[in-house]
């Protein structure tokens, strides 16, 4: 397992470690990969002069110039589609869709064009493109700037879809994504990004090695081992799950926490290995409930013949409503540690 050890998600790292935010880790990965491989190009809105709304591209324009670090018009279908054409010609474009919520203006370029180049060409045309995009809410940015849409991307074939939970994974996964010959949708959660102007889950800020390393794009991580119940999360809900596990530990409940990291492909083996051990499952997802990640994880476990259920699986997800602006409403709709703990307790006591 190439992710940082359990402790990094749980406790401040030892003092001599270099702890970075996800934003800084992504920025470092981009710097290093652009230096190492001059076929890498960065393109999107406000990535150049401004360094990216999400702090990922700072310094790249100065270091690599305007040819390789391109600010674009507000034409997502255009520049993502253009990236596919570049990728076929041997360039490795990293493009940004500023908010995943804007997918509707450019989804064809992603799910038809990028995702199907390999298939339609019988494997002859490659699309080594990374689509970085921010997900998640919790800061009252309302219904067009706060969605996760994990399952929207996970459902459509031909895309790899990943979401790192901490800075170590973020750097290693972005390096893997850029080197991958396939389109990778690289989601970063705003509540983990470590921007100055947004609160950040402390567990996302972890030690990040300076050098080059890869974290695989197809492996979930067991971020905490346990024996009584499996808690599955992704993005911010992984942190909720770790926090819930700590609360449960005080009650004598040993929870194993799985961070999906990738939803396409979904690492079904890691999920199954855990649920076969614990016989109990709670999935925490910030995406909309219906036809979401939580259902897929539950179905995966329930289809398996080797799981011996001690209680029925449960899920916590965003209700099937647009994301309300008012903070009181949004906070009530979001999954949180308390509700996750409640569900885990229920799974321990009820059938």
């Amino acid at each position, binding site marked *: 397992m190439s992710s940082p050890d359990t402790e990094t998600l749980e406790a401040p790292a030892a003092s001599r470690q270099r702890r970075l935010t996800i934003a800084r880790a992504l920025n470092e990965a981009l710097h290093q990969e652009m230096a190492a491989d001059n076929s890498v190009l960065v393109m999107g809105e406000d990535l150049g002069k401004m360094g990216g709304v999400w702090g990922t591209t700072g310094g790249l324009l100065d270091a690599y110039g305007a040819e390789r670090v391109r600010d674009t018009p*507000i034409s997502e279908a255009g520049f993502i589609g253009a990236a596919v054409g570049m990728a076929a010609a041997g360039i490795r474009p990293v493009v940004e869709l500023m908010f995943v919520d804007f997918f509707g*203006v450019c989804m064809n370029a992603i799910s038809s064009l990028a995702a199907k180049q390999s298939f339609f060409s019988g494997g002859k045309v490659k699309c080594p493109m990374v689509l970085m995009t921010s997900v998640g809410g919790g800061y*009252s940015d309302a219904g067009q700037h706060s969605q996760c849409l994990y399952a929207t991307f996970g459902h459509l074939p031909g895309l790899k879809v990943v979401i790192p939970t901490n800075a170590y994974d973020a750097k290693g996964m972005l390096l893997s994504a850029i080197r991958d010959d396939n389109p990778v949708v690289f989601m970063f959660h705003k509540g983990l990004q470590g921007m100055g102007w947004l609160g950040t889950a402390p567990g996302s800020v972890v030690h990040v090695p300076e050098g080059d390393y890869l974290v695989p794009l197809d492996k979930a991580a067991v971020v905490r081992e346990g024996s009584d119940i499996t808690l599955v999360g992704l993005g911010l809900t992984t942190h909720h799950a770790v926090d819930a596990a700590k609360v449960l530990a005080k009650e004598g409940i040993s929870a194993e926490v799985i961070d999906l990291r990738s939803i396409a492909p979904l690492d079904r083996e890691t999920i199954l290995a855990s649920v076969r051990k614990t016989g109990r499952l709670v999935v925490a997802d910030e995406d909309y409930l219906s036809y979401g990640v939580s259902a897929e994880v539950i179905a995966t476990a329930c289809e398996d013949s080797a799981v011996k259920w001690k209680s029925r699986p449960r899920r916590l997800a965003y209700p099937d*409503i647009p994301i*309300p602006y008012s903070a009181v*409403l949004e906070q009530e709709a979001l999954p949180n540690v308390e509700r996750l703990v409640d569900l885990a307790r229920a799974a321990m006591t009820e059938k």
Partner: protein
Amino acid sequence: MQSPANASGNLHHRLWMYQAMLRSRELETRIKEIYFEGKLPVFNMAKGPIPGEMHLSVGQEPCAVGVCAHLRPTDVVTATHRPHHVAIAKGVDMNAMTAEIFGKKTGLSKGLGGHMHIFDSAVNFSCSGIIGEGTAPAVGAAMAAKLQGRDDVAVSFLGEGGANQGQFHEAANLAGLWKAPVIFIIEDNSYGISVSKAESTAVPRNSDRAAAYGMPGVYVSDNDPDAIYEAAGEAIRRARAGEGPSIIEIETHRLEGHFVGDTNEYRPQAERDRLPSLDPIPLYRERLLAEGYEGAELERLEAEAASAADAAIAFARASEFPTFQEALNHVFA
């Protein structure tokens, strides 16, 4: 705030425009101040009475008032992520709008929408945080008026950055094709966040793109309320008369950052230094005085705008938050 098109005529349209600009400015000045409440010392966008992103229209008020001065409540307006000036000029209820911005139950949308989703069906105003999204619905609204035999029009506001969205092309082509009574108002403030117009747009003027859709295109320079009023008046007259759509691009200025907290650092220093001198409100005040309007009258309007803004803030602050049931109630009609 009724537009002069509907007001009983005793308020001259230039005073109305001045007043509407002031109202927007006074409200946004207060919003900006309150926006920082609770967010400091370490700025955190999630906190305070007005969380989330906040895009101010400071400097762009002429675009709103010059256009909306010609509109009736039954005319439709779609606006953008930067909606306040247009909303106020269109006659959106300031108290309810402010309450929406505060996420309160008394807000236009009971706090479900927020500052980028100001919907006031009483005056047919809406806006959206997705660039270009309002262009096609405006064409539809215009066609609805036509089909229903009304001489109402629709106006779609967008930024110069938004004019590079594919949706705009599709909407403009539909409008030209169907001779829809719609007017596209492009507020050209030279920037889409940090990306300048020269870095985003293949031609100097979006008004020249009108020819691609078989409609007239007009460029109004200098952020001038009176010139905007003239150009919009002609376009709206044409639309009401069944002569079809228009594009108007207006040179305007974003005096603040893209959103509150943005420090405009990507703009050249000389340009930033010039910004205060471009404030259209004092410039218009001078012009009105020079052309013989009474200082006392202007002061009365200024005081009125300030107190309307105070009242809106007070109303919003005093209002309750919605209950979660509201969020469940309105997913479907």
